[in-house]
């Protein structure tokens, strides 16, 4: 795929510069107040099944993971906190059961400190999760990692409550 770039002259009207937008597939939304609920609460697995076609077993399993798709981290730490080990376990079980499934681990930090250094911290978090998944039998080829550092916060805000929600690794499955 060739990515169009923006010639300065092509931007006379900024609102019309839609040609420059790379296609974005937003991963599943983090649950609201996920930090408080531990990100591992289970709700409404069957809700998505209200469409015309019944979900396959794999789709149902994937839907169940929608509320277990984020691990949150402590400040300046890349250790998986005890309460999120269940997130790792659930996702690892899914990947082991469905070897064709592909997972992308997206590492993120809060906004404090230098942006490129935070890319490093986000990567470290993503790699910690990746290694934990490998230890649970997931094949290396099923996972990729990316670090967004502080560039893609889950929530706006400049206080500890916002920071806590932004220090995270998101589990994003290829659609």
């Amino acid at each position: 795929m060739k990515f169009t770039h923006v010639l300065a002259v092509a931007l006379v009207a900024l609102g019309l510069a839609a040609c420059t937008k790379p296609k974005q597939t937003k991963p599943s939304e983090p649950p609201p107040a996920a930090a408080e609920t531990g990100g591992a609460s289970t709700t409404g697995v069957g809700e998505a099944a209200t469409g015309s076609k019944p979900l396959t077993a794999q789709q149902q399993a994937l839907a169940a993971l929608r509320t277990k798709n984020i691990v949150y981290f402590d400040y300046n730490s890349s250790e998986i906190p005890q309460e999120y080990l269940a997130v790792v376990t659930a996702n690892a079980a899914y990947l082991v059961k469905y070897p064709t499934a592909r997972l992308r681990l997206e590492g993120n930090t809060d906004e404090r400190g230098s942006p490129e250094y935070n890319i490093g911290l986000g990567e470290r978090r993503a790699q910690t999760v990746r290694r934990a998944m490998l230890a649970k039998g997931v094949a290396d080829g099923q996972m990729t990692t990316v670090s967004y550092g502080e560039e893609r916060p889950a929530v706006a805000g400049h206080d500890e409550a916002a920071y806590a929600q932004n220090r995270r690794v998101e589990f994003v499955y290829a659609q």
Partner: protein
Amino acid sequence: MQAMTGWLGWRAARFVIFSLGLALAGTGASHAQLRLDITEGVRDAVPIAVVPFGGQAEGGTNDIAAVVAGDLRLSGRFAPLDRKDMVARPTIGSEIRFPDWRLLKSDYIVVGRAVTERGATSVAFELFNVQTGELLLAETVPVPGQSMRAAAHRIADLVFERLTGIPGAFSTRIAYVSVEGTPPSRRYRLVVSDADGFNARNVTESNEPIMSPAWSPDGKDLAYVSFETRTSAIYVQRLATGERRRVSARAGINGAPAFSPDGRRLAITLSRDGNLDIYILDLATQALTRVTSDEAIDTEAAWSPDGDSIYFTSDRAGNAQIYRVDLAVAKEAERVTFTNSYNARPRVSPNGEELAMVTLDRGGYRIGVMDLKSRTLRVLTDGQQDESPSFAPNGATIIFASESRGNGDLALVSSDGRYQERLRSDSGDVREPAWSPYPAR
């Protein structure tokens, strides 16, 4: 006299809040304009009168004297006289009645006029010492590409150099990243503007993050990181044409580009299994040379001006500190910073004598400058989240990103820390400023 000068300077700086963010005509104009707010006093700014120039109407964005005065004010070293206090409008030295300007407590006066001869416009100006009446400078500058503002910036450069001994850096540009929208839906733009925030133009934009703009030494290209393919890659873009090359899209991280002083190589950060290290990429041959091989995070390379060494951030000792590696000698990187528990994102001053960085100082991420000889660190700012320092090419000023009251702004601090100003964004957050080199003349 000194006290009076100081008071005038302080008063002028304290109460003047002026807007540079006027709407711009022309192609490619970005709406991410910056507005300069002088937020802190300059106690010893030198009073100077920049009289409205002849041959043009007063006011508007092309008002030469207003641009010159704005530049001089932006430097923090001068306090231009308010126009409404001027009792006369001389446009040539012979018209100046020096006693009047002495009464107005101006130490210096600049007069001039735009002249059109055979279809070509130029601007003639003179600089005088008000006390002695001595002519300090008389020059005529061309108007490049019909840009009165460019001519005015050139005049400010010359006046600044004549009075301080330091070449002015007003004819330069800044690159920065603007971010608009609420997570998770955000729009990222890479913007280049004049050093005073004017003429903002988008270089590229994306719904995915854009990071780390870095100028080539000739000021023609920008290297930056874009996540537009949903993973990081480094691009080098020619500003004049928009033409760009993807120079690194290796598996893992591609980050923190920095042009070598000769412009032929790019120091970059790459990762292998999550381990970040610094490499040097030869832009012509694509040859890759590994610089660091530690298990820690090694990133944010900055070249020394002679190209012989690279400063970088590493947490190999447990927390982020700055190290220096000599490229000619194969030996361990030397740790440079020891004060404070977090020092990152080094930038070497143009003369190679100082290192600007982000330092965690009493609970706040702030801009510090280290004297590389004595290794003493001075903290220049007092914010909670000041980051991404970048030296002006004359070394006199550092631009950096500063978050306050929930807004990401750019800010300026003199490299001696004596004054500070903010460039506020009219829309969204602005971050990661990079000051251009001098323009080619």
